[in-house]
């Protein structure tokens, strides 16, 4: 199934051939939270796929033909169709592979998941800012912003009275927001969910999910990657291999 531990392809590498019959390909990077969304959905739905990791610090020229923006994740099927933007790839997979639906069939429940997704949208850029922050004051300010964003999500869980964001079973919205919560511990941001007990319980429940745990990256490895990544090292993306 997935070779998520394959060495990344970089500048000068030969472009990969066509996608084999019966598989879908994801261009990814082992530590990218956006690509992790797509890999979670592939895993949760049991979709046969292959993973090609891209060295994001030294991108192959051919990769810009897959996505002019040069970003991961990108899906490629054996009809040569390319799908970009993580949330769009996840929805595409749910529609193209109808077994084990992750989005609800009910139009209102589906809309609710998209509204929660919007509520979450400030978190990824905040993580980016936090990683690049230079001073203790900056970090303190950003932590406060995290608390505010997490309170919004706490309110959703409080109103719904369910374990997960889509109900009492894990579903699409949980997978879409999970990658950033997985990284909280390694980033020493766990304190930011101290005042949001339901969110804390959700994090614990997510860690027990078989799909989430199959794709979990341990904190130390992530930190090793991050150190190299912020220094723009071309070795970052293959850390730990």
């Amino acid at each position, binding site marked *: 199934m997935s070779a998520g531990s394959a060495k990344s392809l970089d500048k000068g590498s030969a472009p990969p051939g066509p996608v084999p019959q019966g598989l879908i390909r994801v261009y990814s990077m082992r530590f990218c939270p956006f690509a992790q969304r797509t890999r979670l959905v592939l895993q949760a739905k049991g979709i046969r796929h292959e993973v090609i990791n891209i060295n994001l610090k030294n991108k192959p020229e051919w990769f810009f033909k897959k996505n002019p923006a040069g970003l991961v994740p990108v899906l490629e099927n054996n009809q040569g169709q390319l*799908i970009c933007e993580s949330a769009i790839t996840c929805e*595409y997979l749910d529609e193209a592979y109808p077994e084990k639906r992750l989005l609800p069939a009910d139009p*209102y429940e589906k*809309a609710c998941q*998209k*509204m929660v997704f919007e509520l979450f949208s400030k978190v990824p850029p905040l993580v980016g800012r936090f990683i690049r922050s230079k001073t203790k004051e900056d970090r303190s300010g950003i932590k406060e912003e995290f608390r505010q964003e997490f309170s919004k999500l706490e309110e959703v869980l409080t109103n719904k009275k369910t374990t997960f964001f889509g109900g009492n079973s894990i579903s699409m919205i949980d997978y879409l927001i999970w990658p950033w919560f997985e990284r909280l511990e390694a980033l020493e941001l766990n304190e930011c969910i101290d005042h949001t007990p339901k969110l804390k319980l959700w994090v614990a429940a997510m860690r027990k999910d078989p799909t989430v745990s199959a794709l979990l990256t341990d904190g130390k490895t992530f930190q090793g990657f991050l150190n190299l990544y912020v220094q723009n090292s071309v070795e970052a993306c293959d850390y730990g291999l």
Partner: protein
Amino acid sequence: MGEDASRSLGKGSVPPGPVPEGLIRIYSMRFCPFAHRTRLVLLAKGISHEIININLRNKPDWYYTKHPFGQIPVLENSRCQLIYESVIACEYLDDAYPGRKLYPYDPYERARQKMLLELFYKVPHLTKECLVALRCGKECCDLKLALREEFCNLEEILSYQNTVFFGGDCISMIDYLFWPWFERLDVYGIADCVNHTPALRLWIDAMKQDPTVCALLIDKNIFLGFLNLYFQNHPDAFDYGLNC
């Protein structure tokens, strides 16, 4: 169908009752481009609806029970379910109501329309900034340049596809999601931003032939009247052009 000729509700207004069975309600404002998207979809799909216009400069307190920040559009159905964000509302309508589907059935084609929407994301902000700059007598060359660049990206798509509309040879969801800002180019004073994009101009002409687009086309003089009052911070701006 839905009459958009109702005066906007402001602070102190009585909250509307529950949505009648068989209708869906949209909280809107006659000149808002985001709400315009949803009104286009309601009409295109022939969905029975009622419109409640909100005075955006003097929002009723009850409106914050419909949207946490008092934004429009918001859909409310007869089960008291609320849906907001214009794109989410449009998709909800396409999913929930039978008949003509505005999004394609094919998952890849659906994904393509959503990727196209990503290409569009800077346009609303840029057009608004141009409008504000021009209205305040400021320069907006850089803004117009940036907007033209965005339009070039869209032009490239139409040229590459060699289709009239963004989703193919028939009008579909993505066209309706883009349209409101193109309808406003003229009245905002930035119609020259499509001077170098012939395929986009053809698309605009084709859109103006669409019965749904036509039915909701806002009269230029009324729009200008609204803009004049809006930029003077006049409390009745949102109701400009309504018969008393």
